[in-house]
């Protein structure tokens, strides 16, 4: 029982995920700044931002429901934290069962749906537009992402992230066999995290703040925290699925290698957001259904054929 509470609250639960989220955010901001010839923020900036947001006054526009606005970020937060529990961290597995990959995918979709609902529950027009866009974007990236990450599962013959990680010891890291899958999964992850260049639902020059335009204070802080933790879980997931070999094969340096792999993922995400302009929603739908879905099917077919 105490072990369970420790897992939930400290490692690999709340505290660990929050710390990782803030650390990754800082890495991302710093790298992006260096790509853009800026100095970038000091290491404590994400924490300072969070403290400031949580201490700010909470404003509620007339006609909006305070309960719904509070519940949505909390619901998303609990969903992503739960998803994080099933992912092995440098070989350490807290909870695991056959099929947790699907549960993780499901839980990771909750923030997107909550984001959509937040837009619909707000009274503002920009929130409404942002919410509509987020569901359109969800339909574009989620299908190729799901097809793609079933590649490692099929290859390992298991739908458990820990098992997929484990089976790479004998088979070698899956990124060698599925480089295309890794690229597709990264694109899907960028869409999921609503990061530049797929930050269509929250594009400031078009819809101001997207669904979150009317959120303020602690509620907005919770939303940012949710996005940070979502990024952490997504990065951990991809690292396990495609580089999972190092978790088990190198027990002595597993933690160091795991951290390096995560930082590599952060660097890839930063570089992509520095290099590309934001796509239009119709262009994203075209990219998703005309390019990503066929490619992910090709990758999956390749994996199945290799297994036969």
């Amino acid at each position, binding site marked *: 029982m105490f072990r369970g509470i420790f897992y939930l609250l400290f490692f690999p639960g709340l505290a660990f995920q929050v710390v990782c989220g803030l650390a990754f955010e800082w890495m991302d901001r710093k790298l992006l700044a260096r790509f853009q010839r*800026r100095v970038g923020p000091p290491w404590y900036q994400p924490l300072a931002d969070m403290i400031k947001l949580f201490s700010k006054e909470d404003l509620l526009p007339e006609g909006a429901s305070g309960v719904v606005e509070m519940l949505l970020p909390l619901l998303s937060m609990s969903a992503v934290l739960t998803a994080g529990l099933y992912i092995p961290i440098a070989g350490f597995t807290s909870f695991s069962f056959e099929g947790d990959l699907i549960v993780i995918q499901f839980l990771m979709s909750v923030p997107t749906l909550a984001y959509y609902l937040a837009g619909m529950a707000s009274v503002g027009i920009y929130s409404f537009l942002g919410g509509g866009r987020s569901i359109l974007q969800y339909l574009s990236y989620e299908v190729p992402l799901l097809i793609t990450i079933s590649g490692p599962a099929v290859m390992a013959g298991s739908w458990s992230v820990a098992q997929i990680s484990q089976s790479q010891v004998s088979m070698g890291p899956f990124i060698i066999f599925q480089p295309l899958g890794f690229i597709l999964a990264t694109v899907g992850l960028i869409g999921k995290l609503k990061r530049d260049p797929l930050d*269509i639902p929250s594009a400031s020059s078009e819809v101001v703040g997207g669904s979150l335009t009317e959120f303020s204070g602690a509620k907005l802080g919770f939303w940012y925290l949710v996005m940070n933790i979502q990024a952490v879980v997504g990065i951990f997931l991809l690292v396990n699925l495609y580089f999972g070999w190092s978790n088990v094969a190198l027990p002595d340096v597993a933690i160091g290698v795991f951290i390096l792999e995560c930082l590599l993922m952060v660097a890839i995400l930063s570089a992509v957001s520095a290099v590309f302009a934001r796509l239009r929603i119709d*262009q994203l739908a075209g990219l998703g259904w005309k390019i990503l879905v066929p490619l992910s099917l090709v990758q999956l077919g390749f994996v199945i054929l290799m297994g036969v």
Partner: protein
Amino acid sequence: MNKISIPIGPHHPLLKEPLSMIIDISGERVLGGALRLGYVHRGIEKMATQRTYVQDVHLIERICGICSHVHTTTFCLAVESLLGIEVPPRGQYIRALMCELERVHSHLLWLGILAKNVGLDTVFMHAWHDRELALDMMEGISGGRVSHAANQIGGVRFDLSTQQEEMISINLVKLKQQVSGVLDVIENEPALLARTQGVAPVSAEMIKDYCVVGPVARASGVDVDMRRDDPWPPYDQLDVNVIVLPEGDAWARTLIRVLETRESLRLCESIMQQMPDGPVAERAKRKVPEGEVITRSEAPRGEVFYYLRSDGSDKPARLKVRTPTLPVLSLLPVQLSAIHVADIPVVLAGIDLCVACADR
């Protein structure tokens, strides 16, 4: 889907200056838009008639925060032609140098805004970083980054030292390299091309119907440039290449400004090479003889037009300023139809708004 009206402005992350638009959309399609102006109207034309000519130079500098120098230059040219005085050659060249540097800084600023609007923050940061070089040059010459106070009636208020001339030559070389890097990105970045190519094209006929001038007109294949068509010295001695692109879409409007930046830098270099020696200003009388005059010059956004009437006193009887932004604004509702919501920032950036100029 139902029709929704979204307000853009007077305060919106997209806008740098106050301007209000009500845009009707259906889903992600824009149906049309209506415009409201006048948030920064300061009555400068009326104020100018209550001040002396000398004071007016400083007032007119405040019309615009980006192209302040070209406004005072055009005003001074008008007063000088009524007075019948000729600015010494060195003064003319310094004026032209400031005009071209101003164009460089305005175009780079604009490029940053476009990049920001399409979500390409890296180009935004790099363009504004390069723009600092142009601002440094202007600050080194005049002491002011935005308001330079360079002009006086009869010439300019300062001379260039050898040190300043060296600083300008070094910075021009640097800036040229940076701009060619930016040009490379603009021509090749696939996501930027996808967002701008074929967006909101404007035909040359439409440009002429709406009297649009400047880079927007030139990007649609209309060959107008006051530096060549109605030059004041020293532009008549400089070889100005007018860049014209036929496409008329948002991408052409992007590309033309980068090409014009490069052209302006080349002009700056030839101005520095041809810079004559001698005085920089002529003494001007306080009272201006009776008469009326029209002067035109090419601001970064197109033709700036000044009409000045004098009644023989030391204050203008009437001053009329026509800036290039107003006709482009009238074209805006036309452009804001049958596009995507995501194209609104591209279209708005493409016309390079200067609301302060338009409202005065």
